Protein backbone atom coordinates (compact mmCIF):
# COMPACT_ATOMS: atom_id res chain seq x y z
CA UNK A 1 0.00 0.00 0.00
CA UNK A 2 1.53 3.35 -1.00
CA UNK A 3 1.80 6.10 1.60
CA UNK A 4 0.08 9.25 0.40
CA UNK A 5 1.50 12.71 0.81
CA UNK A 6 -1.35 14.62 2.47
CA UNK A 7 -0.09 17.91 0.98
CA UNK A 8 -0.84 16.77 -2.60
CA UNK A 9 -4.37 16.05 -3.89
CA UNK A 10 -4.87 12.34 -3.16
CA UNK A 11 -6.75 11.59 -6.39
CA UNK A 12 -3.67 12.90 -8.27
CA UNK A 13 -1.41 10.50 -6.39
CA UNK A 14 -3.72 7.62 -7.25
CA UNK A 15 -3.60 8.64 -10.93
CA UNK A 16 0.23 8.65 -10.74
CA UNK A 17 0.25 5.26 -9.05
CA UNK A 18 -1.92 3.72 -11.79
CA UNK A 19 0.06 5.44 -14.58
CA UNK A 20 3.22 4.08 -12.97
CA UNK A 21 1.79 0.56 -13.01
CA UNK A 22 0.93 0.94 -16.71
CA UNK A 23 4.45 2.15 -17.57
CA UNK A 24 6.12 -0.63 -15.58
CA UNK A 25 3.90 -3.20 -17.29
CA UNK A 26 2.18 -4.28 -14.08
CA UNK A 27 -1.05 -3.17 -15.75
CA UNK A 28 -1.23 -4.27 -19.40
CA UNK A 29 -2.92 -2.51 -22.33
CA UNK A 30 -6.56 -3.61 -22.37
CA UNK A 31 -6.21 -5.05 -18.87
CA UNK A 32 -8.87 -4.47 -16.24
CA UNK A 33 -8.36 -2.16 -13.27
CA UNK A 34 -9.61 -3.18 -9.83
CA UNK A 35 -13.11 -1.95 -8.97
CA UNK A 36 -13.42 1.36 -7.14
CA UNK A 37 -14.33 -0.47 -3.92
CA UNK A 38 -11.42 -2.91 -4.17
CA UNK A 39 -8.91 -0.13 -4.69
CA UNK A 40 -10.48 1.97 -1.92
CA UNK A 41 -9.92 -0.96 0.44
CA UNK A 42 -6.37 -1.63 -0.78
CA UNK A 43 -5.30 2.01 -0.45
CA UNK A 44 -7.57 2.78 2.54
CA UNK A 45 -8.88 5.80 0.69
CA UNK A 46 -12.40 7.20 0.37
CA UNK A 47 -14.07 5.46 -2.64
CA UNK A 48 -15.19 8.88 -3.97
CA UNK A 49 -11.50 9.80 -4.34
CA UNK A 50 -10.77 6.60 -6.29
CA UNK A 51 -13.80 7.22 -8.53
CA UNK A 52 -12.50 10.72 -9.19
CA UNK A 53 -9.04 9.40 -10.13
CA UNK A 54 -10.68 6.93 -12.56
CA UNK A 55 -12.80 9.72 -14.08
CA UNK A 56 -9.73 11.92 -14.60
CA UNK A 57 -7.72 9.02 -16.09
CA UNK A 58 -10.59 8.40 -18.47
CA UNK A 59 -10.70 12.08 -19.43
CA UNK A 60 -6.99 11.87 -20.25
CA UNK A 61 -7.61 8.79 -22.38
CA UNK A 62 -5.46 6.51 -20.22
CA UNK A 63 -8.33 4.22 -19.24
CA UNK A 64 -11.84 3.62 -20.52
CA UNK A 65 -14.99 2.16 -19.00
CA UNK A 66 -17.18 -0.57 -20.41
CA UNK A 67 -20.65 -0.15 -18.98
CA UNK A 68 -21.43 -2.77 -16.42
CA UNK A 69 -18.01 -4.37 -16.80
CA UNK A 70 -15.53 -1.96 -15.26
CA UNK A 71 -12.50 0.15 -16.10
CA UNK A 72 -9.78 -0.95 -18.53
CA UNK A 73 -6.35 0.31 -19.61
CA UNK A 74 -6.42 1.99 -23.02
CA UNK A 75 -5.28 -0.16 -25.95
CA UNK A 76 -3.94 2.83 -27.92
CA UNK A 77 -0.16 2.54 -28.38
CA UNK A 78 0.09 6.34 -28.22
CA UNK A 79 -1.26 6.42 -24.66
CA UNK A 80 1.56 4.25 -23.40
CA UNK A 81 4.21 6.28 -25.31
CA UNK A 82 2.77 9.56 -23.99
CA UNK A 83 2.73 8.32 -20.42
CA UNK A 84 6.32 7.18 -20.69
CA UNK A 85 7.36 10.48 -22.21
CA UNK A 86 5.57 12.50 -19.54
CA UNK A 87 7.23 10.47 -16.81
CA UNK A 88 10.64 10.91 -18.49
CA UNK A 89 10.11 14.67 -18.70
CA UNK A 90 9.29 14.79 -15.01
CA UNK A 91 12.47 12.88 -14.13
CA UNK A 92 14.66 15.05 -16.40
CA UNK A 93 13.05 18.24 -15.10
CA UNK A 94 13.79 17.08 -11.56
CA UNK A 95 17.41 16.32 -12.50
CA UNK A 96 18.03 19.84 -13.83
CA UNK A 97 16.25 21.40 -10.86
CA UNK A 98 18.37 19.44 -8.39
CA UNK A 99 21.58 20.21 -10.31
CA UNK A 100 20.74 23.91 -10.45
CA UNK A 101 20.29 23.91 -6.68
CA UNK A 102 23.91 22.68 -6.53
CA UNK A 103 24.95 25.61 -8.74
CA UNK A 104 25.31 23.78 -12.09
CA UNK A 105 24.01 25.37 -15.26
CA UNK A 106 22.10 23.21 -17.76
CA UNK A 107 25.10 22.80 -20.10
CA UNK A 108 27.38 21.87 -17.19
CA UNK A 109 24.84 19.35 -15.93
CA UNK A 110 24.59 17.82 -19.41
CA UNK A 111 28.38 17.60 -19.70
CA UNK A 112 28.57 15.90 -16.32
CA UNK A 113 25.82 13.50 -17.29
CA UNK A 114 27.71 12.62 -20.49
CA UNK A 115 30.90 11.94 -18.54
CA UNK A 116 28.93 9.83 -16.10
CA UNK A 117 27.52 7.63 -18.88
CA UNK A 118 31.07 7.12 -20.27
CA UNK A 119 32.30 5.94 -16.89
CA UNK A 120 29.30 3.71 -16.31
CA UNK A 121 29.07 2.35 -19.85
CA UNK A 122 25.63 1.73 -21.31
Amino acid at each position, binding site marked *: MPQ*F*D*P*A*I*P*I*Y*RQIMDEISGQIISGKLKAGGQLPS*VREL*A*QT*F*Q*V*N*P*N*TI*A*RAYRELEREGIVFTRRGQGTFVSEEKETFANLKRERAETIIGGFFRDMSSLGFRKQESLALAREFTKEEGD
Partner: protein
Amino acid sequence: MEHALRAHNLTKRYGHTLALCGLNLEIPKGKIVALLGPNGSGKSTLLKLFAGLIHPTAGEALVLGERAGVETKSKVAYVPEFNHLYRWQTVDEATRLAMKFFSDLDYELAQKLIAEMQLEPGLKIGSLSKGMHARLKLALALARTAPVLLLDEPLSGIDPQSRRKILTALVDTYRPGEQTIILSTHQVLESEATFDQVLFLQDGELVLWGDADELRREHNSSIEDLFAKIYQ
Protein backbone atom coordinates in the same frame (compact mmCIF):
# COMPACT_ATOMS: atom_id res chain seq x y z
CA MET B 1 -27.22 18.48 -6.92
CA GLU B 2 -29.36 17.08 -4.14
CA HIS B 3 -28.28 18.06 -0.67
CA ALA B 4 -28.20 15.67 2.24
CA LEU B 5 -27.97 18.40 4.86
CA ARG B 6 -28.63 22.13 4.79
CA ALA B 7 -28.40 24.87 7.37
CA HIS B 8 -30.13 28.24 6.93
CA ASN B 9 -29.08 30.96 9.32
CA LEU B 10 -28.72 28.20 11.90
CA THR B 11 -28.28 29.67 15.37
CA LYS B 12 -28.05 28.03 18.77
CA ARG B 13 -27.75 29.84 22.07
CA TYR B 14 -27.25 28.20 25.48
CA GLY B 15 -28.11 30.87 28.04
CA HIS B 16 -25.63 33.66 27.35
CA THR B 17 -23.38 31.51 25.19
CA LEU B 18 -23.78 31.64 21.45
CA ALA B 19 -22.75 28.17 20.22
CA LEU B 20 -23.63 28.67 16.56
CA CYS B 21 -24.30 32.01 14.92
CA GLY B 22 -26.20 32.17 11.65
CA LEU B 23 -24.61 29.22 9.91
CA ASN B 24 -25.39 28.68 6.23
CA LEU B 25 -24.16 25.53 4.54
CA GLU B 26 -25.12 22.80 2.12
CA ILE B 27 -23.67 19.31 2.23
CA PRO B 28 -24.12 17.32 -0.98
CA LYS B 29 -25.42 13.76 -0.87
CA GLY B 30 -22.93 10.91 -0.85
CA LYS B 31 -19.85 12.53 0.67
CA ILE B 32 -17.70 11.92 3.72
CA VAL B 33 -17.22 15.26 5.45
CA ALA B 34 -14.72 16.11 8.18
CA LEU B 35 -16.00 18.66 10.69
CA LEU B 36 -12.95 20.40 12.14
CA GLY B 37 -12.49 23.01 14.83
CA PRO B 38 -11.12 23.52 18.33
CA ASN B 39 -13.13 22.59 21.42
CA GLY B 40 -16.09 24.90 21.86
CA SER B 41 -16.28 25.85 18.18
CA GLY B 42 -19.79 24.41 17.82
CA LYS B 43 -19.07 20.99 16.25
CA SER B 44 -21.15 18.91 18.67
CA THR B 45 -23.96 21.46 18.63
CA LEU B 46 -24.13 21.33 14.83
CA LEU B 47 -24.28 17.51 14.84
CA LYS B 48 -26.97 17.45 17.54
CA LEU B 49 -29.06 19.94 15.57
CA PHE B 50 -28.88 17.76 12.44
CA ALA B 51 -29.66 14.70 14.58
CA GLY B 52 -32.81 16.49 15.77
CA LEU B 53 -31.80 16.13 19.42
CA ILE B 54 -31.86 19.87 20.14
CA HIS B 55 -33.79 22.72 18.56
CA PRO B 56 -32.28 25.79 16.94
CA THR B 57 -32.72 29.18 18.60
CA ALA B 58 -33.16 30.63 15.12
CA GLY B 59 -32.89 29.39 11.55
CA GLU B 60 -33.28 25.79 10.49
CA ALA B 61 -31.44 22.51 10.00
CA LEU B 62 -32.72 20.37 7.11
CA VAL B 63 -32.14 16.65 6.57
CA LEU B 64 -32.94 15.57 3.00
CA GLY B 65 -35.17 18.62 2.66
CA GLU B 66 -37.07 18.05 5.94
CA ARG B 67 -36.68 19.98 9.17
CA ALA B 68 -34.54 17.93 11.57
CA GLY B 69 -36.69 16.43 14.31
CA VAL B 70 -38.66 13.34 15.26
CA GLU B 71 -39.64 12.67 11.64
CA THR B 72 -36.05 12.64 10.37
CA LYS B 73 -34.68 10.37 13.13
CA SER B 74 -34.99 7.23 10.99
CA LYS B 75 -32.87 8.89 8.32
CA VAL B 76 -30.04 9.86 10.64
CA ALA B 77 -27.70 7.62 12.61
CA TYR B 78 -26.04 9.71 15.31
CA VAL B 79 -23.17 8.55 17.49
CA PRO B 80 -22.47 10.77 20.52
CA GLU B 81 -18.98 11.28 21.90
CA PHE B 82 -19.88 9.91 25.34
CA ASN B 83 -20.52 6.24 26.04
CA HIS B 84 -24.25 5.67 25.95
CA LEU B 85 -24.45 1.84 26.13
CA TYR B 86 -25.56 0.00 29.29
CA ARG B 87 -22.65 -1.34 31.31
CA TRP B 88 -24.44 -4.50 32.44
CA GLN B 89 -25.36 -5.65 28.94
CA THR B 90 -23.24 -7.84 26.68
CA VAL B 91 -22.16 -6.71 23.21
CA ASP B 92 -24.86 -8.89 21.67
CA GLU B 93 -27.57 -7.66 24.06
CA ALA B 94 -26.63 -4.08 23.24
CA THR B 95 -26.90 -4.91 19.52
CA ARG B 96 -30.38 -6.44 19.98
CA LEU B 97 -31.50 -3.44 22.04
CA ALA B 98 -30.25 -1.06 19.34
CA MET B 99 -32.33 -3.04 16.81
CA LYS B 100 -35.48 -2.30 18.85
CA PHE B 101 -34.74 1.43 18.72
CA PHE B 102 -33.62 1.53 15.12
CA SER B 103 -35.62 -0.48 12.61
CA ASP B 104 -32.98 0.19 9.95
CA LEU B 105 -30.27 -1.74 11.84
CA ASP B 106 -29.07 -4.78 9.88
CA TYR B 107 -28.30 -7.44 12.51
CA GLU B 108 -26.16 -9.61 10.23
CA LEU B 109 -24.06 -6.64 9.16
CA ALA B 110 -23.72 -5.62 12.83
CA GLN B 111 -22.43 -9.11 13.71
CA LYS B 112 -19.97 -9.02 10.82
CA LEU B 113 -18.70 -5.55 11.82
CA ILE B 114 -18.42 -6.55 15.48
CA ALA B 115 -16.25 -9.52 14.43
CA GLU B 116 -14.12 -7.29 12.19
CA MET B 117 -13.69 -4.93 15.13
CA GLN B 118 -12.39 -7.91 17.09
CA LEU B 119 -15.12 -7.80 19.72
CA GLU B 120 -16.74 -10.87 21.25
CA PRO B 121 -20.58 -10.85 21.35
CA GLY B 122 -20.50 -12.18 24.92
CA LEU B 123 -18.29 -9.43 26.36
CA LYS B 124 -19.84 -7.19 29.01
CA ILE B 125 -20.00 -3.51 27.98
CA GLY B 126 -18.63 -2.56 31.42
CA SER B 127 -15.47 -4.57 30.76
CA LEU B 128 -14.64 -2.90 27.42
CA SER B 129 -11.66 -0.58 27.08
CA LYS B 130 -12.26 2.91 25.70
CA GLY B 131 -11.02 1.82 22.28
CA MET B 132 -13.26 -1.28 22.25
CA HIS B 133 -16.24 0.82 23.28
CA ALA B 134 -15.55 3.28 20.45
CA ARG B 135 -15.28 0.36 18.00
CA LEU B 136 -18.60 -1.09 19.16
CA LYS B 137 -20.40 2.27 18.85
CA LEU B 138 -19.12 2.63 15.30
CA ALA B 139 -20.04 -0.96 14.35
CA LEU B 140 -23.63 -0.39 15.55
CA ALA B 141 -23.85 2.89 13.61
CA LEU B 142 -22.38 1.45 10.39
CA ALA B 143 -24.85 -1.44 10.55
CA ARG B 144 -27.72 1.01 10.02
CA THR B 145 -29.00 1.76 6.54
CA ALA B 146 -29.93 5.38 7.40
CA PRO B 147 -28.71 7.66 4.59
CA VAL B 148 -27.02 10.10 6.99
CA LEU B 149 -24.42 9.15 9.58
CA LEU B 150 -23.20 11.70 12.15
CA LEU B 151 -20.15 10.77 14.21
CA ASP B 152 -19.08 13.02 17.08
CA GLU B 153 -15.35 12.56 17.75
CA PRO B 154 -15.24 8.83 16.88
CA LEU B 155 -11.42 8.84 17.10
CA SER B 156 -10.75 10.87 20.22
CA GLY B 157 -9.17 9.47 23.36
CA ILE B 158 -8.58 5.96 22.02
CA ASP B 159 -5.53 3.87 21.05
CA PRO B 160 -4.01 4.09 17.53
CA GLN B 161 -5.03 0.51 16.61
CA SER B 162 -8.66 1.26 17.42
CA ARG B 163 -8.49 4.47 15.39
CA ARG B 164 -7.04 2.50 12.46
CA LYS B 165 -9.79 -0.14 12.73
CA ILE B 166 -12.50 2.51 12.84
CA LEU B 167 -11.19 4.32 9.75
CA THR B 168 -10.83 1.02 7.88
CA ALA B 169 -14.39 -0.02 8.71
CA LEU B 170 -15.65 3.41 7.63
CA VAL B 171 -13.99 3.20 4.20
CA ASP B 172 -15.01 -0.45 3.70
CA THR B 173 -18.65 -0.11 4.74
CA TYR B 174 -19.38 3.35 3.33
CA ARG B 175 -21.97 3.37 0.54
CA PRO B 176 -20.63 5.92 -1.98
CA GLY B 177 -23.08 8.22 -3.65
CA GLU B 178 -25.87 7.15 -1.33
CA GLN B 179 -24.66 7.65 2.23
CA THR B 180 -23.53 10.97 3.69
CA ILE B 181 -21.18 10.88 6.67
CA ILE B 182 -20.04 13.76 8.87
CA LEU B 183 -17.33 13.08 11.40
CA SER B 184 -15.95 15.64 13.80
CA THR B 185 -12.35 15.01 14.72
CA HIS B 186 -9.02 16.36 15.93
CA GLN B 187 -7.13 13.45 14.35
CA VAL B 188 -6.78 15.19 11.00
CA LEU B 189 -3.61 13.58 9.69
CA GLU B 190 -4.82 10.02 10.29
CA SER B 191 -8.12 10.64 8.56
CA GLU B 192 -6.84 12.72 5.60
CA ALA B 193 -7.59 9.97 3.05
CA THR B 194 -11.00 9.18 4.57
CA PHE B 195 -12.95 12.41 4.01
CA ASP B 196 -13.61 14.19 0.73
CA GLN B 197 -14.96 17.48 2.06
CA VAL B 198 -13.95 19.64 5.01
CA LEU B 199 -15.79 22.15 7.19
CA PHE B 200 -13.75 24.39 9.49
CA LEU B 201 -15.71 25.88 12.40
CA GLN B 202 -14.51 28.60 14.73
CA ASP B 203 -16.51 30.33 17.47
CA GLY B 204 -19.76 29.06 16.00
CA GLU B 205 -19.01 30.27 12.49
CA LEU B 206 -17.95 28.56 9.32
CA VAL B 207 -14.48 29.87 8.45
CA LEU B 208 -13.59 27.64 5.50
CA TRP B 209 -15.09 24.73 3.67
CA GLY B 210 -14.66 22.82 0.47
CA ASP B 211 -13.40 19.77 -1.35
CA ALA B 212 -10.35 18.36 0.48
CA ASP B 213 -8.25 17.76 -2.66
CA GLU B 214 -9.08 21.23 -4.03
CA LEU B 215 -8.02 22.80 -0.71
CA ARG B 216 -4.76 20.80 -0.84
CA ARG B 217 -4.12 22.11 -4.33
CA GLU B 218 -5.06 25.73 -3.61
CA HIS B 219 -3.07 25.98 -0.39
CA ASN B 220 -0.27 23.58 -1.32
CA SER B 221 -0.75 21.99 2.04
CA SER B 222 -2.23 19.05 3.87
CA ILE B 223 -5.56 19.58 5.61
CA GLU B 224 -3.74 19.03 8.91
CA ASP B 225 -1.36 21.95 8.20
CA LEU B 226 -4.25 24.09 7.02
CA PHE B 227 -6.03 23.26 10.28
CA ALA B 228 -2.96 24.29 12.29
CA LYS B 229 -2.67 27.54 10.31
CA ILE B 230 -6.31 28.50 10.78
CA TYR B 231 -6.41 27.82 14.51
CA GLN B 232 -2.92 28.89 15.54
